[in-house]
């Protein structure tokens, strides 16, 4: 299998995480990065990769087989279309785009140009949640009647820093046109994708949106989703808490299962970083890139696919439409 050349577009918070992980891949190597920040480019040049201030130039680099798009959500569509036209395989951070039409454009362009398209949903690569999937498929749980999924954190409002210097929350997070929505788009899409993977299509979704922080965007949401006639799920997402919680509880006719992703603890993170160089918290991010590079290298269609990203956005749009006043 050939070693895939990766280009990373966007070196913000998640772009940097992808860069750090991509550098560790056996089946891929980072060949180029693009960002508008001179500081980010200077640092990237220091690790021996081509650094561009314009992603169009990165797309022309013949050593780039696939791009990782880690830009603010409203910039996904243009970048993805350019990448597809340049015949680069695409990995896009969730959510795929700010709205369904843009998302469909990305999928269509990837198909037309014959490139792979994968959406970054790390929970799909988290052993905790993949083991739940196995338990559902094996019939161990019986029929799952109800599911409760919670993802609560401070969302984009965590204390950010570049090096030792604190930096403000990027402005695009406050603009619904740039982010496409609030916590439902940011964290809700993870749970929607995960539960669809577990139970199939969502046939109906209703929601209640809250605005504790008086923003145009919702900072918490509770959704009730139906998966056909059997499983009903309650999704509880919020940006309002300093405490991180990611938990999925399934209640089956035979057995129940609870999967809870432990939060990052400075001490355990330090130990993990010293022993494995990657904190357990971010291992799923590493696994998803490894898998994406494998798919590209072997010409296999990756999953979660672009179509899944579109469907997740459709569910979110329906949740917004069906929000109780």
């Amino acid at each position, binding site marked *: 299998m050939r070693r895939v050349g990766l280009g990373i577009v966007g070196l913000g918070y998640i772009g940097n995480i992808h860069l750090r992980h991509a550098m560790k891949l056996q089946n891929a190597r980072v060949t180029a990065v693009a960002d508008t920040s001179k500081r980010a480019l200077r640092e990237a040049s220091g690790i021996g990769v081509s650094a561009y201030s314009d992603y169009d130039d990165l797309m022309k680099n013949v050593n780039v087989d696939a791009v990782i798009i880690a830009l603010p959500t409203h910039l996904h569509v243009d970048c993805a279309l350019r990448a597809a036209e340049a015949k680069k395989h695409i990995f896009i951070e969730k959510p795929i785009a700010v709205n369904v039409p843009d998302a469909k454009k990305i999928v269509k362009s990837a198909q037309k140009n014959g490139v792979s398209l994968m959406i970054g949903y790390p929970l799909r690569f988290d052993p905790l949640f993949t083991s739940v999937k196995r338990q559902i498929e094996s019939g161990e749980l019986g029929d799952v009647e109800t599911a409760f999924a919670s993802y609560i954190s401070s969302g984009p409002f965590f204390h950010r*820093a570049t*090096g*030792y210097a*604190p930096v*403000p929350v990027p402005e695009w997070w406050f603009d619904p046109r740039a982010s496409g929505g609030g916590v439902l788009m940011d964290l809700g899409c993870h749970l929607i994708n995960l539960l669809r993977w577990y139970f199939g299509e969502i046939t109906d979704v209703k929601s209640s949106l809250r605005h504790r*922080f008086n923003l145009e965007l919702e900072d918490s949401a509770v959704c009730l989703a139906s998966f056909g006639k059997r499983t009903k799920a309650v999704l509880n997402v919020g940006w309002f808490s300093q405490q991180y919680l990611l938990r999925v509880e399934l209640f089956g006719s035979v057995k129940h299962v609870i999967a809870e992703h432990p939060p990052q603890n400075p001490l355990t*993170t*330090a130990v993990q970083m010293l022993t494995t160089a990657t904190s357990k918290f971010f291992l799923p991010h590493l696994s998803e890139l490894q898998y994406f590079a494998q798919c590209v290298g072997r010409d296999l269609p990756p999953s979660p696919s672009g179509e899944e990203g579109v469907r997740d956005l459709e569910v979110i749009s329906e949740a917004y439409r069906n929000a109780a006043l």
Partner: protein
Amino acid sequence: MALAKLRGDSVEAIKEGVSECLQLINFEFRPSVQNIVVKPNLCYYWDYSTGETTDPRFVAATAELLREKISPGVRVTVVESDASAMRCKHVFKMLGYEKMARDWGIELVNLSEDENRPAEVTVAGQTFRFKMPKAIAEADLKINMPKIKYTIESLRITCALKNIFGCNPYPRKFRYHPRLEETIVALNKAMKFDLNLIDGNIVSGTSPRRLGLAMASTDPVAIDAAAACIAGINPRKIRYLKLASSEGIGSVEFVEKGEPLRHFAVAYPRKSLRRKLMGKAYNVAIRASLGRRLGLE
């Protein structure tokens, strides 16, 4: 220095507590006052429930009391400035200050966008230059409304004196951190506030706790010393309090009036020995540049 127990967190209950404190310190409500500036502690996007930021109801209650005592037409302005990681345009909205301003007829001013003039002050033989915001320079009653918080090891605790650090309109405030103590004292020397009123309804401590406390003093050093005692820290061991005292800003000595301080001190969520040691280890790791490698940043 006065302490009062709040009997609830409604505007009315807070107003009662604040009024009690001001009576105890014989605060003079000068009839000539027309323009009041209030500096709450707004820190990042953490709301009052975390104990990290001043509750907008505390500001509204004080504004109402002042209008009752001075004149209904008195102008009240809440001031804050942008910080390294915080923008006023968002924090005023997110922490409920915009709504409070609408409901109670209070103005909001971002000092980073306000007019200012150069100012200079000397502390411990060093000269500090910064911008003096017009809103503060022109106010005829300045009220400091801080929170009691544990902070970085060198300062140990922050309250009234540190809150004035947020009156510096320059946003990238982390640049002052190498000389943080002297900068805090310099800003307090240049912008002397008339009244310090602590919102101790919910305190952050090691984890948020409803303390139901209001404290008032015209002396920022004395009120900080009392706040340190509540948090279990000997104020005489806090370097910047001693520095502020030596610069004539106030006195570490205080006389308590009203509710006994010990009633609040026993309920304050204090640092355990384990936590103190963890804090020291964390600081050593960061200072030794291990932070980035260990993912601690």
